[in-house]
């Protein structure tokens, strides 16, 4: 009896790296990493706010550049959170507020060459220039540009998804402006004078543009605070994965697979190439798409390996999905690890090429074989790893019935009536 107690105590108190990973331990680490990623996203958004305030107080090339640099830094942790979408309802229901894309930016500010040709009558509404708008037949008072106006009225106005009024891409558009270079070199080139009050204002309505930028940045911070709390000790997102570890594991793999395949390989990467459309790049105003894709890939890999490197260089890690899969099927684990390495490398090749001057939108040009090869290399790697992610779902016996979670499966009679 004594012996047993001693043994139990050791098990409880001592870290024992040789113990096998458990679903409980894996989902707890997954939630810890989520909290760290969203906290880093919040921290970098707060730094963006400081830079925006400096820009607004003293618009100059330097303060505008500093705000742009802060925005780029804020994207690094945020993009790594995207692997938490799809599987987690709390993230999925929320993310449109901060990262909705693609957008009809003519809703927000002046643009060139926009025409109402598609389904969106607000594609050229330009709220910065127009204090009164008509949305779905109703007049809207937009005289005060506030977070409430952006988030409550303009975001997805008239039920149209491309009416994106909030989040990273709205701020990106305000800091960079339209990229008018098509598939040629160069990003958006908004002048700092677009934020100058008084006669030196360019682009018109600088007071409203400043109000918009400040409101959108404040709202981004509020929204990120909400998600940090959701993954905190008492948060709903954390509870959803930790109270039912099996559901948590399913969320992890669902996020990895859906982001790899349908979202990243399909919607964001391959579709843009097939449309040869430079606006079909995720960070199209700033020409930062190579980073945005790359850190998505890093985030997917991090979910599997149970590890995240924070913006301060420290590492959050713990029990991993990889260990669980390896215990069931070591060969599959080895293969999936290699495939995740390969997709990060393929996305890294795009990043390197872009940093060396071959921008992502140039890769989308019709008939650009080198760009197509780089982009399709990433698509193929992401599609390939999706197969192994599916196999991991099967290996961990999370298949079918648990994954779908449909009412009809719990109660088959419901659909037979």
């Amino acid at each position, binding site marked *: 009896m004594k012996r047993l107690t001693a043994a139990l105590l050791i098990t409880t108190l001592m870290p024992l790296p040789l113990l096998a990973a458990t679903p409980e331990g894996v989902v707890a680490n997954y939630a810890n990493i989520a909290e760290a990623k969203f906290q880093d996203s919040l921290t970098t958004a707060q730094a963006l706010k400081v830079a925006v305030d400096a820009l607004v107080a003293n618009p100059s090339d330097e303060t505008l550049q500093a705000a742009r640099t802060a925005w780029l830094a804020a994207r690094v942790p945020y993009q790594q959170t995207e692997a938490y979408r799809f599987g987690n309802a709390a993230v999925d229901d929320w993310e449109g507020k901060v990262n909705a894309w693609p957008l009809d930016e003519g809703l927000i500010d002046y643009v060139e060459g926009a025409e109402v040709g598609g389904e969106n009558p607000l594609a050229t509404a330009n709220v910065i220039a127009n204090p009164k708008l008509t949305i779905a037949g109703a007049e809207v008072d937009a005289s005060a540009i506030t977070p409430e106006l952006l988030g409550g009225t303009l975001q997805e106005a008239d039920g149209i998804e491309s009416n994106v009024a909030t989040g990273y891409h709205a701020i990106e558009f305000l800091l960079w402006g339209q990229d008018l270079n098509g598939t040629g070199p160069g990003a958006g080139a908004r002048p700092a004078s677009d934020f100058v009050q008084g006669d030196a204002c360019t682009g018109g309505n600088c007071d409203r543009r400043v109000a918009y930028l400040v409101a959108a940045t404040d709202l981004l911070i509020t929204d990120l605070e909400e998600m940090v709390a959701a993954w905190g000790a008492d948060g709903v997102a954390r509870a959803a994965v930790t109270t039912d570890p099996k559901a948590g594991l399913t969320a992890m793999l669902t996020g990895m697979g859906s982001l790899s395949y349908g979202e990243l390989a399909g919607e964001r990467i391959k579709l843009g190439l097939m449309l040869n459309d430079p606006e079909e790049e995720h960070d199209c105003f700033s020409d930062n798409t190579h980073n945005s894709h790359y850190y998505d890939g890093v985030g997917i890999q991090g979910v599997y390996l149970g590890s995240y490197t924070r913006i301060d260089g420290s590492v959050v890690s713990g029990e991993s999905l990889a260990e669980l899969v390896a215990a069931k099927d070591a060969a599959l684990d080895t293969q999936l690890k290699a495939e995740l390495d390969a997709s990060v490398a393929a996305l890294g090749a795009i990043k390197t090429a872009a940093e060396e001057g071959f921008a992502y939108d140039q890769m989308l040009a019709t008939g650009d074989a080198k760009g197509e090869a780089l982009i399709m290399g990433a698509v193929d790697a992401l599609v390939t790893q999706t197969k192994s992610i599916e196999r991991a779902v099967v290996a961990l016996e999370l298949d079918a019935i648990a994954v779908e979670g449909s009412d*009809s*499966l719990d109660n088959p009679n419901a*659909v*037979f009536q």
Partner: protein
Amino acid sequence: MRLMLGFCFALATPAAADVADALNTVILPGYAGFATATAALDQAAQADCAPEGLQDEWNAAFDAWMRVGFLRLGPGEGEGRNLAIAFWPDPKGLGAKAQAGMLKSGEIPAEFGEVSVAARGLFGLERLLYPQDAIFKAEAACRLIRATTADLARMAAELSAEWPPYAARMQAPGAVGETEFLTEAEVKRALLTALVTGVEFQKDSRLGRPLGDFDRPRPERAEARASGRSARNVDLSLRALRDLTAALAPEAAVTLAALDKAIATAEGLDDPVFAGVAEPGSRLKVEILQQQVTAAKDAMMAELVPALGVGTGFNAADGD
């Protein structure tokens, strides 16, 4: 003893026969039919590009595509062919803009397969054969029609040629060098995923887009309105989905009955472009059809998952 052995083998392989049935009686003939129909369309267009004279052939090609267009796996995913053959929805009107650009300049790329997927295929042709805007009747329209039909027929011929070897791979899972299908379960998973995704597309896109919200119906968002094919596309797609289900799992009586019910409703709708979604009475009929399609999907999950012994995998529509 011999008889017993034979019996055992027969028992061990019925599932394989189902996959073979799905491929040989539905999928492969579907792609062959699409190749034939698009070749006929192209032949007619090269002979005479007058839009009205090509509408029958174009409709036949569209009908043929409905047999297989929901299959988001295999050769169609290569080179963006599924996207280029039927690019819809196109909420930003990218296809019309790209075509208008070519028609204004009169410059139609010789390598037409390099042109944006939004400007090609069945929907590119619909805008040219049922012109709703003067630009689509421009002088260059004839050349654009011919370039588009030739490109479409080329893609269809490639699919028809590439599917048989792909189907052979699906029937030999785990063969040396095979990485996509390691087991027969993976083949079934891929087909089940295609079925479920196909039914969801009817519900969410072909029906869901025009339905919009009760307070904000969107009849202008119906698919293929100019040619009046919106409801027909739902009907034909449901039939194709039913045929594939019947081949793959003939015992799935509840699913087949649910699909039959939805097909009957689609047939009797008498609202070819879902214009009725804007009026409460006629809207109800489209809503009922959507509910029946939803019921068919639920039946699939409840019945086909255990019947095939697999769940659904990730699909191309997982993004947002």
